[in-house]
């Protein structure tokens, strides 16, 4: 048997390269993260203490943007717009997030059982997710039109889906659920496929029914997948903008205006008040972080209990 050459002889600079290579791998991400994540975050914090419209020189104005947001100065118009937006966003998060966790799970379980039409069903449910939110809203705008829409035509009703409350919100939930079910469903189908088959078999031998198997095997085995989708869906729901912007234009009477819409309009809506928009984004970001932290703590305590 020929003697194997020592590694150092083949790669004279091996140790050096070995110490450099890992940094080469992570560097693109780190640079992108610094350029597009960390730097904008730090800049946003700095800008939130200024009055700046992107064109004129930045003026330091201390806590004034924050005071406006909390209604401590000014007419209260900014505070009222922002907190109304936050309230509407919370409504969306509280209702839409469970829908986008439970329904995809239900669909995923059904699809996993129906092997014959599995791929077709996955394509059917996943299709809306590949569309942009603007396309989805335009499509639903046609479907939901009170007088000329297909839905009212077939239901033989005159429901003002987009122009009156609470229908405007119902339309947003319908559309968002139709659009979002597919993304989480794909993850759940993959999660279910990863559950070791012997556990199912053992449960079946023990006489466990479908419901029992779901709650005692499927759900615990998919804990991490569910946790991931919960965090991502919550963050996605907090960032809701397109549905309100395109489908309802924030109406009727600002009733579907979300926090992201207020922030966007403050930054880009006309007067380009970037300082104020950044302050709103920071306050809103802190609220989002709080929710994410609570979800995380819930998950950790859940894991500790198990």
């Amino acid at each position, binding site marked *: 048997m020929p003697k194997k050459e020592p590694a150092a002889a083949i790669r004279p600079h091996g140790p050096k390269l070995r110490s450099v290579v890992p*940094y080469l791998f992570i560097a693109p991400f780190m640079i992108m993260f610094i350029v597009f994540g960390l730097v904008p975050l730090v800049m946003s914090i700095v800008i939130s203490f200024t009055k700046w419209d992107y064109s004129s020189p930045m003026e330091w104005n201390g806590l004034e943007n924050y005071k406006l947001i909390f209604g401590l100065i000014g007419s*209260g118009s900014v505070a009222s717009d922002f907190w109304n937006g936050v309230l509407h966003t919370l409504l969306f998060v509280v209702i839409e997030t469970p829908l986008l966790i439970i329904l995809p799970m239900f669909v995923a379980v059904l699809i996993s059982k129906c092997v014959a039409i599995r791929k077709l069903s996955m394509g059917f449910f996943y299709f809306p997710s590949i569309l942009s939110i603007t396309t989805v809203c335009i499509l639903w705008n046609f479907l939901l039109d009170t007088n000329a829409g297909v839905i009212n035509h077939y239901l033989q009703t005159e429901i003002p889906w987009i122009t*009156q409350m609470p229908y405007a919100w119902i339309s947003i939930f319908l559309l968002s659920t139709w659009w979002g079910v597919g993304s989480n469903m794909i993850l759940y189908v993959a999660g279910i496929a990863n559950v070791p088959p012997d556990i199912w078999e053992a449960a079946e031998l023990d006489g466990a029914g479908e419901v029992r198997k779901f709650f005692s095997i499927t759900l615990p085995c998919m804990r991490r997948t569910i946790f991931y989708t919960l965090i991502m869906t919550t963050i996605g729901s907090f960032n809701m903008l397109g549905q309100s912007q395109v489908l309802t234009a924030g109406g009727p*009477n600002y009733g579907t205006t979300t926090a992201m819409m207020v922030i966007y309009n403050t930054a880009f809506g*006309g007067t380009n008040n970037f300082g104020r928009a950044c302050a709103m984004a920071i306050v809103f970001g802190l609220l989002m972080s709080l929710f994410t932290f609570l979800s995380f703590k819930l998950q950790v305590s859940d894991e500790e209990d198990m």
Partner: protein
Amino acid sequence: MKKTSKIIGFILAAALSLSCLIGCAGKDPNEPSADGFTVIRFWNGFTGTDGETMDKIVEAFNAEYESENIRVVADKIPWDTLFTKLTTTSSNLRSAPHIVAMSASRIAGMNERGIFTDMEGLEEFIGAKEEDYIPAAWTGGIIDGTRYGFPLDVHPTAMYYNKNLISEDELPTTWDEFLEVCIEKTGDGIYGWTVPSMYSISKDVFLNMLYSAGGSMFDENNEPVFNSDIAVEQLSYLNDLVNGPTPVSPTNVGSGGDFTLFTQGKSVFYFDGPWVINTLGLYDNPDSNYGVAPCPESIGEGETNFAGSHQFTLMKNTVTTDTIREACYTFIKYVSEHSFDWAKAGQVPALKTIHETEEYKELEPIAAFTQMAYTATLGEIDYKYWYEGYNYMGVAVSNAISGIMTPKEALDAAVADFKGWVEDEEI
């Protein structure tokens, strides 16, 4: 040694990653391109038929001025995105435009941020005289006596009608007649006019009526007066069309719902700008079922109507040399003189001499808009917050027509909201 390797590794990685970003960098736009051309970036939001036409005009300009080494690169960006991009790139010399076509109503607000350069000497360069242009368009680009916008077109809101449902002789010329006609025609699934209740064309029709009745959005001190008695009266008229004792419109007409019902033959009238001429194919089909007439009480002696106007503006950060400025002026002059094609795209050219040509007179569907353009007003658009006030007014119109508030409540609330917004904005 280990530490040195780490540093080298990090620098290497940084260099590798940044190399892709460096590739994005370009030249100062004020320097001629490699082939010696003066390149002008022209941004506009014309994304429909008007966009295709503007592309052809730019193409023709580039062919004609190739010998003079001027080239225009047009970039079509949807209006909302255009203003966002303009704000974020105005100080970036590599990507900022030289010329931007925009609505006259946005000029005062954008100018407040100092992003425009004045158009000194442009009128002399073009040989433009005030009497040669539609009055509203000519003054639309002037802020505090300085020209920041040069007029391209005017786009009033006119009244389209379905010829199967109404004859030309029956067309109303006053709003009272309009109501009478609508009441007469409404029934059996047909409506007089399906009034959109969402933020929509209804607000422009309201402004048409408001200015026509002698009202305004702002007074001479820029105080909002769109809740005046005249305004309440006009909005009440619109509201009655939907929610009154003899409604001529269905309720809760959503965005685009009015157009759908009009094209389905369920609505006698439809209000919109001249771009709909192409959507309905009126130029290509003289025997179309659709016609277009001026809005009631919008033309003739003593009448007026509300219109918009697209204007050319020059960016301060990029138009910094005489060569660039002259190239921009050359392009603006060319488009102005070749704006017959612009009429075919569905806009009323601001240059009056175009309207006097035989070929323009043959464009029958644009005639109603042209008539309206001569008596049009753009509103008090030299006020920096006019556009924001217009948006607050739009919500009031929507709230009234949706039946959420009475016209007076809706307009009072909008004025109060706007005043609060201005107070906070001034902090």
